[in-house]
């Protein structure tokens, strides 16, 4: 039997009060697929990926992650969050814990891993993001780029099947964007299913199987990065790409 799609969103709607943030969003992400989501701010792209691990509630529609239906039931959330890692714009490392403690907390408390095993795993992933020597430091002692790489390692320590990235480079100084993107490119090469909200078009071209353009809470256009960027069909995407190009 073929593995179920990594993520299925079917007619998902979200609103905060009178603000309709997601309108009928439907999306199928295959195992190992790498999807980049772009769009102007307020287009609902962050809300969409935050729905996938239940950080945001949706009012109607259906979401299935790795074959598990996401409901309000705590057990489904728990199972899905074990499988889905997330990296945030503002890193969100726990400031009172060292890098190593940040990495071992979830494997030990959620998966019941022994400390020695969790620490060995953490060191392996800190090695993969190329900062094993920072393991004993606190987040505030690291640069933004290093903090974001720790955040990626922390998520990987749960050995997720899907990784969500919510504008992972938007809060970084320009000279640190590269090191984080390099880490993500390497991760993409390992076959991880990735959904990434970003405006880094170079990254999209390099790793994305598919780019999704959102505006006004709906998916306006999607396709392979080269065709989408070279020949945008809608006026909204043309306008968006022109703005992105102007600012780069």
């Amino acid at each position, binding site marked *: 039997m073929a593995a179920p799609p990594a993520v299925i969103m079917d007619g998902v709607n979200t609103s905060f009060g009178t603000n309709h943030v997601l309108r009928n969003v439907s999306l199928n992400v295959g195992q190992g697929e790498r999807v980049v989501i772009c769009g102007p701010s307020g287009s609902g792209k962050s809300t969409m990926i935050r729905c996938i691990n239940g950080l945001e509630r949706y009012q109607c529609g259906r979401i299935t992650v790795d074959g598990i239906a996401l409901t309000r039931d705590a057990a489904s959330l728990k199972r899905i969050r074990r499988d889905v890692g997330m990296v945030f714009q503002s890193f969100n490392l726990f400031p009172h814990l060292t890098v190593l403690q940040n990495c071992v907390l979830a494997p030990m408390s959620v998966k019941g891993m022994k400390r020695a095993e969790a620490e060995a795993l953490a060191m392996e992933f800190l090695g993969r993001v190329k900062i094993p020597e920072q393991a004993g430091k*606190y987040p505030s002692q690291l640069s933004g780029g290093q903090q974001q790489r720790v955040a990626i390692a922390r998520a990987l320590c749960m050995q997720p099947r899907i990784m969500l990235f919510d504008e992972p480079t938007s809060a970084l100084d320009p000279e640190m964007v590269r090191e984080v993107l390099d880490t993500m490119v390497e991760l993409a090469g390992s076959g991880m299913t990735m959904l990434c909200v970003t405006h880094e078009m170079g990254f999209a071209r390099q790793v994305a199987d598919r780019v999704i353009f959102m505006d006004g809470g709906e998916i306006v256009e999607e396709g392979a990065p080269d065709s989408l960027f070279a020949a945008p069909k809608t006026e909204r995407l043309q306008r968006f790409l022109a703005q992105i190009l102007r600012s780069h």
Partner: protein
Amino acid sequence: MGGYGSQFAAGILLTLEISVCSYLIGLIFGVLGASAKLSPWKALRLLGNLYTIIVRALPELLLLLIAFYVLAGAISGLAASIGLVKSDFAFNPFLVAVIALGFIQGAYVTEILRAGVLALPKGQSDAALALGLSFPVRWGRVLGPQVMRHALPALGNVWLNATKDSSLISIVGAFADVLKVSSLAAAATKDYILFYALAALCFLLISVVSMAILNALHIRSRRGLHIA
């Protein structure tokens, strides 16, 4: 000092017992109060607001008098009337005192914890949820320590007040705490200066030791902050 030394020692012990017990009860009321005020349910928020508004508005002595002479009697009377306890039952005065003092401190702790929770960056809770951390781990390991970082100095003030407010109970019951011992000794010997100075010294000692402990806790709670 005519044998008052051992009475003072017992007085310090009682003052500390009342302070520690009432403070711990205050922390429990504070956690409950802050949870109520931050709850998504309106009725709980209202209850939390009533608690902090009323308790912080009234003089502590008045609240103690109400607890001792109105509530304790009413509750034990009610319990006796439905046959839960014998008709001559009376609450242990120590228990009434520490619960009443704890209830008062809890109102202040409520506000402190509430402010600490509101000061948490939302991303911390997001990250903890995304990692799948359970409620006890989220609050015990991630959010709680960060709330404490904000709250500790103010909670320290509540503790220092608790040590001093413990002396109020000598007004409502036969408690031989530091203040009561010193006033009895002073009245008996007419040596007011000596015994009140001694009482002051006892409170000063308690507070100096407390501050040293609070300071150590504060430094620990700030680990990871502003080192770079």
